[in-house]
Protein backbone atom coordinates (compact mmCIF):
# COMPACT_ATOMS: atom_id res chain seq x y z
CA UNK A 1 0.00 0.00 0.00
CA UNK A 2 1.13 3.52 -0.81
CA UNK A 3 0.43 5.07 2.57
CA UNK A 4 1.17 8.65 1.56
CA UNK A 5 -1.09 8.45 -1.49
CA UNK A 6 -3.85 6.89 0.61
CA UNK A 7 -3.61 9.61 3.26
CA UNK A 8 -3.46 12.25 0.57
CA UNK A 9 -6.68 11.07 -1.08
CA UNK A 10 -8.44 10.77 2.29
CA UNK A 11 -7.39 14.32 3.15
CA UNK A 12 -8.99 15.72 -0.01
CA UNK A 13 -12.09 13.56 0.22
CA UNK A 14 -12.87 14.27 3.88
CA UNK A 15 -13.20 18.01 3.22
CA UNK A 16 -15.92 17.36 0.66
CA UNK A 17 -17.54 14.63 2.77
CA UNK A 18 -17.94 16.71 5.91
CA UNK A 19 -18.98 19.86 4.06
CA UNK A 20 -21.46 17.79 2.06
CA UNK A 21 -22.89 16.41 5.30
CA UNK A 22 -23.21 19.92 6.74
CA UNK A 23 -25.04 21.13 3.63
CA UNK A 24 -27.23 18.05 3.68
CA UNK A 25 -28.48 19.13 7.11
CA UNK A 26 -30.11 22.08 5.36
CA UNK A 27 -32.37 19.82 3.33
CA UNK A 28 -35.86 21.03 4.19
CA UNK A 29 -34.43 23.72 6.50
CA UNK A 30 -32.98 26.24 4.05
CA UNK A 31 -34.14 29.84 4.51
CA UNK A 32 -35.89 29.76 1.12
CA UNK A 33 -36.75 27.06 -1.36
CA UNK A 34 -34.04 28.17 -3.79
CA UNK A 35 -31.25 28.23 -1.21
CA UNK A 36 -32.47 24.96 0.27
CA UNK A 37 -32.23 23.30 -3.16
CA UNK A 38 -28.89 24.96 -3.88
CA UNK A 39 -27.45 23.64 -0.59
CA UNK A 40 -28.53 20.10 -1.28
CA UNK A 41 -27.41 20.26 -4.91
CA UNK A 42 -23.94 21.39 -3.87
CA UNK A 43 -23.95 18.66 -1.24
CA UNK A 44 -24.79 16.11 -3.94
CA UNK A 45 -21.92 17.30 -6.13
CA UNK A 46 -19.52 16.99 -3.21
CA UNK A 47 -20.72 13.49 -2.31
CA UNK A 48 -20.35 12.45 -5.94
CA UNK A 49 -16.75 13.61 -5.87
CA UNK A 50 -16.19 11.87 -2.54
CA UNK A 51 -17.39 8.57 -3.98
CA UNK A 52 -14.77 8.79 -6.72
CA UNK A 53 -12.03 9.62 -4.22
CA UNK A 54 -13.03 6.88 -1.76
CA UNK A 55 -13.40 4.33 -4.51
CA UNK A 56 -9.78 5.08 -5.44
CA UNK A 57 -8.59 5.23 -1.82
CA UNK A 58 -10.13 1.81 -1.17
CA UNK A 59 -8.13 0.39 -4.10
CA UNK A 60 -4.92 2.03 -2.93
CA UNK A 61 -5.41 0.93 0.70
CA UNK A 62 -4.63 -2.70 -0.13
CA UNK A 63 -7.30 -3.68 2.40
CA UNK A 64 -9.70 -5.93 0.51
CA UNK A 65 -12.50 -5.13 2.95
CA UNK A 66 -12.23 -1.39 2.36
CA UNK A 67 -15.05 0.16 0.32
CA UNK A 68 -16.50 3.64 -0.23
CA UNK A 69 -18.86 2.91 2.63
CA UNK A 70 -16.35 1.73 5.21
CA UNK A 71 -14.21 4.79 4.50
CA UNK A 72 -17.13 7.16 4.77
CA UNK A 73 -18.90 5.63 7.73
CA UNK A 74 -16.71 3.38 9.81
CA UNK A 75 -13.68 5.41 10.75
CA UNK A 76 -13.26 7.04 14.14
CA UNK A 77 -12.99 10.79 14.63
CA UNK A 78 -9.18 10.92 14.71
CA UNK A 79 -9.04 9.21 11.32
CA UNK A 80 -10.95 11.99 9.54
CA UNK A 81 -8.51 14.50 8.05
CA UNK A 82 -10.80 17.36 7.00
CA UNK A 83 -9.95 20.98 7.79
CA UNK A 84 -11.76 22.57 10.74
CA UNK A 85 -13.53 25.07 8.47
CA UNK A 86 -15.87 22.53 6.88
CA UNK A 87 -17.11 21.10 10.18
CA UNK A 88 -18.29 24.47 11.50
CA UNK A 89 -22.05 24.50 12.10
CA UNK A 90 -24.82 26.12 10.02
CA UNK A 91 -25.17 28.80 12.71
CA UNK A 92 -27.25 30.98 10.39
CA UNK A 93 -27.45 31.51 6.64
CA UNK A 94 -24.57 34.01 6.71
CA UNK A 95 -22.28 31.39 8.33
CA UNK A 96 -23.37 28.72 5.87
CA UNK A 97 -22.60 31.02 2.94
CA UNK A 98 -19.28 32.33 4.25
CA UNK A 99 -18.06 28.82 5.13
CA UNK A 100 -18.93 27.81 1.56
CA UNK A 101 -17.31 30.93 0.14
CA UNK A 102 -14.03 30.38 2.01
CA UNK A 103 -13.97 26.74 0.97
CA UNK A 104 -15.10 27.13 -2.67
CA UNK A 105 -12.31 29.61 -3.48
CA UNK A 106 -9.74 27.15 -2.16
CA UNK A 107 -11.46 24.14 -3.70
CA UNK A 108 -11.48 25.72 -7.16
CA UNK A 109 -7.80 26.73 -7.06
CA UNK A 110 -6.86 23.35 -5.60
CA UNK A 111 -8.68 21.36 -8.30
CA UNK A 112 -7.24 23.50 -11.09
CA UNK A 113 -3.80 22.54 -9.83
CA UNK A 114 -4.73 18.89 -9.21
CA UNK A 115 -5.85 18.64 -12.82
CA UNK A 116 -2.18 18.50 -13.83
CA UNK A 117 -1.31 15.82 -11.26
CA UNK A 118 0.85 12.94 -12.45
CA UNK A 119 -1.75 10.64 -10.93
CA UNK A 120 -4.25 10.02 -13.72
CA UNK A 121 -7.18 9.14 -11.48
CA UNK A 122 -6.82 12.25 -9.33
CA UNK A 123 -6.40 14.38 -12.46
CA UNK A 124 -9.59 12.92 -13.94
CA UNK A 125 -11.62 13.49 -10.76
CA UNK A 126 -10.29 17.06 -10.59
CA UNK A 127 -11.16 17.76 -14.20
CA UNK A 128 -14.70 16.54 -13.67
CA UNK A 129 -15.14 18.40 -10.37
CA UNK A 130 -13.86 21.80 -11.54
CA UNK A 131 -16.95 22.24 -13.69
CA UNK A 132 -19.20 21.68 -10.69
CA UNK A 133 -17.17 23.70 -8.21
CA UNK A 134 -17.17 26.72 -10.58
CA UNK A 135 -20.92 26.86 -10.03
CA UNK A 136 -20.50 26.51 -6.26
CA UNK A 137 -18.08 29.42 -6.22
CA UNK A 138 -20.38 31.55 -8.34
CA UNK A 139 -23.26 30.80 -5.97
CA UNK A 140 -21.42 31.48 -2.70
CA UNK A 141 -19.53 34.58 -3.86
CA UNK A 142 -22.75 36.01 -5.29
CA UNK A 143 -24.48 35.56 -1.94
CA UNK A 144 -21.59 37.17 -0.04
CA UNK A 145 -22.06 40.25 -2.27
CA UNK A 146 -25.79 40.24 -1.78
CA UNK A 147 -25.62 39.91 2.00
CA UNK A 148 -22.72 42.31 2.45
CA UNK A 149 -24.12 44.97 0.17
CA UNK A 150 -27.70 44.27 1.30
CA UNK A 151 -29.57 45.51 4.35
CA UNK A 152 -28.04 46.70 7.60
CA UNK A 153 -29.06 43.41 9.22
CA UNK A 154 -27.62 41.18 6.48
CA UNK A 155 -24.42 43.26 6.46
CA UNK A 156 -23.98 42.90 10.24
CA UNK A 157 -24.57 39.17 10.20
CA UNK A 158 -22.39 38.35 7.21
CA UNK A 159 -19.62 40.52 8.66
CA UNK A 160 -19.76 38.51 11.88
CA UNK A 161 -19.47 35.26 9.90
CA UNK A 162 -16.59 36.63 7.80
CA UNK A 163 -14.67 37.56 10.96
CA UNK A 164 -15.50 34.41 12.93
CA UNK A 165 -14.66 31.91 10.19
CA UNK A 166 -11.55 33.79 9.04
CA UNK A 167 -9.37 32.02 11.60
CA UNK A 168 -10.02 28.69 9.88
CA UNK A 169 -8.80 29.77 6.42
CA UNK A 170 -5.05 29.40 6.97
CA UNK A 171 -5.36 25.68 7.67
CA UNK A 172 -6.44 25.13 4.06
CA UNK A 173 -2.79 25.67 3.08
CA UNK A 174 -1.22 23.62 5.85
CA UNK A 175 0.82 20.68 4.53
CA UNK A 176 0.96 17.29 6.24
CA UNK A 177 3.77 14.78 5.74
CA UNK A 178 1.62 12.97 3.16
CA UNK A 179 0.98 16.27 1.34
CA UNK A 180 4.69 17.02 1.19
CA UNK A 181 5.57 13.55 -0.06
CA UNK A 182 2.93 13.79 -2.78
CA UNK A 183 4.13 17.25 -3.89
CA UNK A 184 7.66 15.88 -4.34
CA UNK A 185 6.28 13.09 -6.53
CA UNK A 186 4.33 15.51 -8.73
CA UNK A 187 1.07 14.00 -7.56
CA UNK A 188 0.02 16.51 -4.92
CA UNK A 189 -0.75 20.20 -5.08
CA UNK A 190 1.66 22.69 -3.56
CA UNK A 191 -1.01 24.57 -1.61
CA UNK A 192 1.41 27.25 -0.40
CA UNK A 193 1.70 28.44 -4.00
CA UNK A 194 -2.06 29.05 -4.06
CA UNK A 195 -2.23 31.16 -0.92
CA UNK A 196 -1.68 34.59 -2.42
CA UNK A 197 -4.20 34.03 -5.23
CA UNK A 198 -6.69 32.70 -2.68
CA UNK A 199 -6.61 35.74 -0.43
CA UNK A 200 -6.79 38.03 -3.45
CA UNK A 201 -9.78 36.09 -4.79
CA UNK A 202 -11.80 36.34 -1.58
CA UNK A 203 -10.52 39.86 -0.85
CA UNK A 204 -11.88 41.15 -4.17
CA UNK A 205 -15.35 39.78 -3.44
CA UNK A 206 -15.34 41.09 0.15
CA UNK A 207 -14.44 44.51 -1.17
CA UNK A 208 -17.34 44.45 -3.64
CA UNK A 209 -19.56 43.30 -0.80
CA UNK A 210 -18.50 46.39 1.21
CA UNK A 211 -17.02 44.11 3.86
CA UNK A 212 -13.64 44.91 5.41
CA UNK A 213 -11.02 42.16 5.02
CA UNK A 214 -10.23 40.72 8.47
CA UNK A 215 -6.74 41.47 9.73
CA UNK A 216 -6.47 38.82 12.44
CA UNK A 217 -3.48 36.51 12.15
CA UNK A 218 -4.70 34.09 14.77
CA UNK A 219 -5.28 30.74 13.12
CA UNK A 220 -6.92 27.51 14.25
CA UNK A 221 -5.61 24.23 12.92
CA UNK A 222 -5.58 20.54 13.77
CA UNK A 223 -8.20 18.97 11.51
CA UNK A 224 -5.62 17.76 9.02
CA UNK A 225 -3.95 15.86 11.87
CA UNK A 226 -7.29 14.45 12.98
CA UNK A 227 -7.71 16.79 15.94
CA UNK A 228 -11.15 18.29 15.52
CA UNK A 229 -13.44 20.84 17.12
CA UNK A 230 -16.25 19.73 19.43
CA UNK A 231 -18.68 19.79 16.49
CA UNK A 232 -17.10 16.81 14.76
CA UNK A 233 -18.40 14.14 17.15
CA UNK A 234 -21.97 15.27 16.59
CA UNK A 235 -21.56 15.21 12.82
CA UNK A 236 -20.15 11.69 12.91
CA UNK A 237 -22.80 10.30 15.24
CA UNK A 238 -25.45 11.66 12.89
CA UNK A 239 -23.67 10.47 9.76
CA UNK A 240 -22.63 7.04 11.02
CA UNK A 241 -25.83 6.12 12.82
CA UNK A 242 -27.44 4.17 9.99
CA UNK A 243 -24.30 2.27 9.03
CA UNK A 244 -23.53 1.29 12.60
CA UNK A 245 -27.12 0.31 13.35
CA UNK A 246 -27.60 -1.61 10.11
CA UNK A 247 -24.11 -2.86 9.23
CA UNK A 248 -23.21 -3.38 5.54
CA UNK A 249 -25.79 -0.96 4.17
CA UNK A 250 -24.77 0.33 0.76
CA UNK A 251 -25.03 3.79 -0.80
Amino acid at each position, binding site marked *: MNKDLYNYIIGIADNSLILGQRLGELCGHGPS*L*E*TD*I*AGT*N*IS*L*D*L*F*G*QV*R*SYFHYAAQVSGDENATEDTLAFLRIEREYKNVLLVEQPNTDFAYTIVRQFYFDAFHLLFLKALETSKD*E*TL*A*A*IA*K*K*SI*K*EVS*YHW*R*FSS*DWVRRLGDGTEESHTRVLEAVNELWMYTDELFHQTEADKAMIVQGVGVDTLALKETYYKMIGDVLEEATLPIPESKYWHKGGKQGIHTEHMGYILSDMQYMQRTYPNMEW
Partner: protein
Amino acid sequence: MILETQNIQPHLISILEGVSDPEIPVLSIMDMGVVREAIEQNGIVRVKITPTYSGCPAMDVIGDDIVSAFAKAGKTAKIQLVLAPAWTTDWITPRGREALEKYGIAAPLSPEADKEALLGNKKIVKCTNCGSTETHLVSQFGSTACKALFKCDTCQEPFDYFKCLK
Protein backbone atom coordinates in the same frame (compact mmCIF):
# COMPACT_ATOMS: atom_id res chain seq x y z
CA MET B 1 -24.56 10.94 -34.00
CA ILE B 2 -21.30 9.32 -33.03
CA LEU B 3 -18.64 11.55 -31.52
CA GLU B 4 -14.92 11.05 -32.02
CA THR B 5 -14.48 10.11 -28.40
CA GLN B 6 -17.17 7.45 -28.69
CA ASN B 7 -16.67 3.86 -29.70
CA ILE B 8 -20.01 2.15 -30.14
CA GLN B 9 -20.63 -0.85 -32.36
CA PRO B 10 -23.42 0.01 -34.83
CA HIS B 11 -25.57 -3.05 -34.04
CA LEU B 12 -25.84 -1.97 -30.38
CA ILE B 13 -27.03 1.57 -31.06
CA SER B 14 -30.75 0.87 -31.38
CA ILE B 15 -30.80 -0.97 -28.03
CA LEU B 16 -28.99 1.90 -26.30
CA GLU B 17 -31.32 4.42 -27.90
CA GLY B 18 -34.19 2.66 -26.18
CA VAL B 19 -32.82 3.56 -22.73
CA SER B 20 -33.86 6.97 -21.47
CA ASP B 21 -32.56 9.31 -18.80
CA PRO B 22 -34.71 8.56 -15.72
CA GLU B 23 -34.88 12.24 -14.77
CA ILE B 24 -35.60 13.47 -18.30
CA PRO B 25 -37.60 10.59 -19.84
CA VAL B 26 -37.84 12.21 -23.30
CA LEU B 27 -34.09 12.03 -23.69
CA SER B 28 -32.35 8.80 -24.66
CA ILE B 29 -28.96 8.18 -23.07
CA MET B 30 -27.48 8.23 -26.57
CA ASP B 31 -28.79 11.76 -27.18
CA MET B 32 -27.52 12.72 -23.76
CA GLY B 33 -24.01 11.62 -24.78
CA VAL B 34 -23.31 9.58 -21.65
CA VAL B 35 -22.48 6.34 -23.50
CA ARG B 36 -18.77 6.39 -24.35
CA GLU B 37 -18.19 2.83 -25.48
CA ALA B 38 -20.20 -0.30 -26.24
CA ILE B 39 -18.40 -3.36 -27.54
CA GLU B 40 -19.66 -6.91 -27.81
CA GLN B 41 -17.03 -9.57 -27.32
CA ASN B 42 -17.35 -13.26 -26.45
CA GLY B 43 -21.07 -12.83 -25.81
CA ILE B 44 -20.69 -9.96 -23.36
CA VAL B 45 -21.45 -6.32 -24.12
CA ARG B 46 -19.13 -3.99 -22.25
CA VAL B 47 -20.62 -0.53 -21.89
CA LYS B 48 -18.75 2.51 -20.60
CA ILE B 49 -20.85 5.38 -19.36
CA THR B 50 -19.78 8.74 -17.95
CA PRO B 51 -21.67 10.72 -15.30
CA THR B 52 -23.06 14.13 -16.22
CA TYR B 53 -22.41 15.40 -12.68
CA SER B 54 -20.27 13.48 -10.15
CA GLY B 55 -23.17 12.98 -7.77
CA CYS B 56 -25.84 12.36 -10.40
CA PRO B 57 -28.14 9.78 -8.76
CA ALA B 58 -29.45 8.79 -12.19
CA MET B 59 -26.22 6.99 -13.10
CA ASP B 60 -26.98 3.85 -11.08
CA VAL B 61 -30.45 3.66 -12.59
CA ILE B 62 -29.07 4.21 -16.10
CA GLY B 63 -26.61 1.35 -15.54
CA ASP B 64 -29.41 -0.97 -14.40
CA ASP B 65 -31.63 0.10 -17.30
CA ILE B 66 -28.89 -0.65 -19.84
CA VAL B 67 -28.37 -4.11 -18.36
CA SER B 68 -32.07 -4.91 -18.57
CA ALA B 69 -32.42 -3.47 -22.11
CA PHE B 70 -29.65 -5.81 -23.28
CA ALA B 71 -31.13 -8.69 -21.31
CA LYS B 72 -34.39 -8.23 -23.26
CA ALA B 73 -32.36 -8.49 -26.45
CA GLY B 74 -30.79 -11.69 -25.12
CA LYS B 75 -27.42 -10.14 -24.32
CA THR B 76 -25.40 -9.84 -21.13
CA ALA B 77 -24.09 -6.35 -20.45
CA LYS B 78 -21.43 -5.17 -18.03
CA ILE B 79 -21.32 -1.51 -17.08
CA GLN B 80 -18.24 0.51 -16.28
CA LEU B 81 -18.30 4.10 -15.07
CA VAL B 82 -15.56 6.28 -16.56
CA LEU B 83 -14.64 9.82 -15.52
CA ALA B 84 -12.27 10.89 -18.28
CA PRO B 85 -12.87 12.58 -20.62
CA ALA B 86 -15.36 14.48 -18.50
CA TRP B 87 -18.88 14.84 -19.88
CA THR B 88 -19.81 18.16 -21.42
CA THR B 89 -23.16 19.56 -22.54
CA ASP B 90 -21.62 19.71 -26.05
CA TRP B 91 -22.23 15.95 -26.21
CA ILE B 92 -25.99 16.40 -26.14
CA THR B 93 -27.05 15.77 -29.75
CA PRO B 94 -29.14 18.26 -31.78
CA ARG B 95 -32.02 15.79 -31.51
CA GLY B 96 -31.47 15.72 -27.74
CA ARG B 97 -31.54 19.51 -27.52
CA GLU B 98 -34.80 19.58 -29.44
CA ALA B 99 -36.30 16.95 -27.12
CA LEU B 100 -35.23 18.98 -24.08
CA GLU B 101 -36.87 22.15 -25.39
CA LYS B 102 -40.10 20.32 -26.22
CA TYR B 103 -40.12 18.85 -22.73
CA GLY B 104 -39.89 22.33 -21.20
CA ILE B 105 -36.19 22.51 -20.41
CA ALA B 106 -34.20 25.25 -22.14
CA ALA B 107 -31.13 23.74 -23.83
CA PRO B 108 -27.65 24.85 -22.71
CA LEU B 109 -26.11 27.98 -24.26
CA SER B 110 -22.44 28.49 -25.11
CA PRO B 111 -20.15 28.92 -22.05
CA GLU B 112 -19.92 32.70 -22.52
CA ALA B 113 -23.65 33.15 -23.02
CA ASP B 114 -24.33 30.80 -20.10
CA LYS B 115 -22.24 32.94 -17.77
CA GLU B 116 -23.98 36.14 -18.87
CA ALA B 117 -27.36 34.51 -18.40
CA LEU B 118 -26.60 33.11 -14.94
CA LEU B 119 -25.10 36.38 -13.75
CA GLY B 120 -28.25 38.11 -14.96
CA ASN B 121 -26.28 40.39 -17.30
CA LYS B 122 -28.22 39.49 -20.43
CA LYS B 123 -31.68 38.20 -21.11
CA ILE B 124 -30.96 35.42 -23.55
CA VAL B 125 -32.53 32.26 -22.12
CA LYS B 126 -35.65 31.61 -24.16
CA CYS B 127 -38.85 30.64 -22.35
CA THR B 128 -39.79 27.09 -23.37
CA ASN B 129 -43.46 27.96 -23.05
CA CYS B 130 -43.84 31.16 -25.12
CA GLY B 131 -40.39 31.75 -26.64
CA SER B 132 -39.88 35.14 -25.03
CA THR B 133 -36.37 36.09 -23.89
CA GLU B 134 -37.81 38.35 -21.19
CA THR B 135 -36.80 35.83 -18.55
CA HIS B 136 -34.90 36.01 -15.28
CA LEU B 137 -32.91 33.64 -13.11
CA VAL B 138 -34.71 32.48 -9.97
CA SER B 139 -32.04 30.09 -8.72
CA GLN B 140 -28.71 28.83 -10.04
CA PHE B 141 -29.70 25.38 -8.84
CA GLY B 142 -32.97 23.87 -10.01
CA SER B 143 -34.74 20.55 -9.59
CA THR B 144 -31.48 18.71 -10.26
CA ALA B 145 -27.82 19.74 -10.07
CA CYS B 146 -27.61 20.10 -13.85
CA LYS B 147 -30.39 22.68 -14.12
CA ALA B 148 -31.06 26.28 -13.10
CA LEU B 149 -34.52 27.66 -12.44
CA PHE B 150 -35.79 30.53 -14.60
CA LYS B 151 -39.04 32.45 -14.80
CA CYS B 152 -40.57 34.08 -17.86
CA ASP B 153 -41.65 37.70 -17.37
CA THR B 154 -43.92 37.55 -20.43
CA CYS B 155 -46.05 34.50 -19.71
CA GLN B 156 -45.06 34.16 -16.02
CA GLU B 157 -44.20 30.46 -16.38
CA PRO B 158 -41.26 29.06 -14.43
CA PHE B 159 -39.00 26.67 -16.37
CA ASP B 160 -35.72 24.81 -16.09
CA TYR B 161 -32.56 25.75 -17.97
CA PHE B 162 -29.97 23.03 -18.57
CA LYS B 163 -26.70 24.65 -17.46
CA CYS B 164 -23.72 24.63 -19.77
CA LEU B 165 -21.02 22.27 -18.56
CA LYS B 166 -17.78 22.54 -20.47
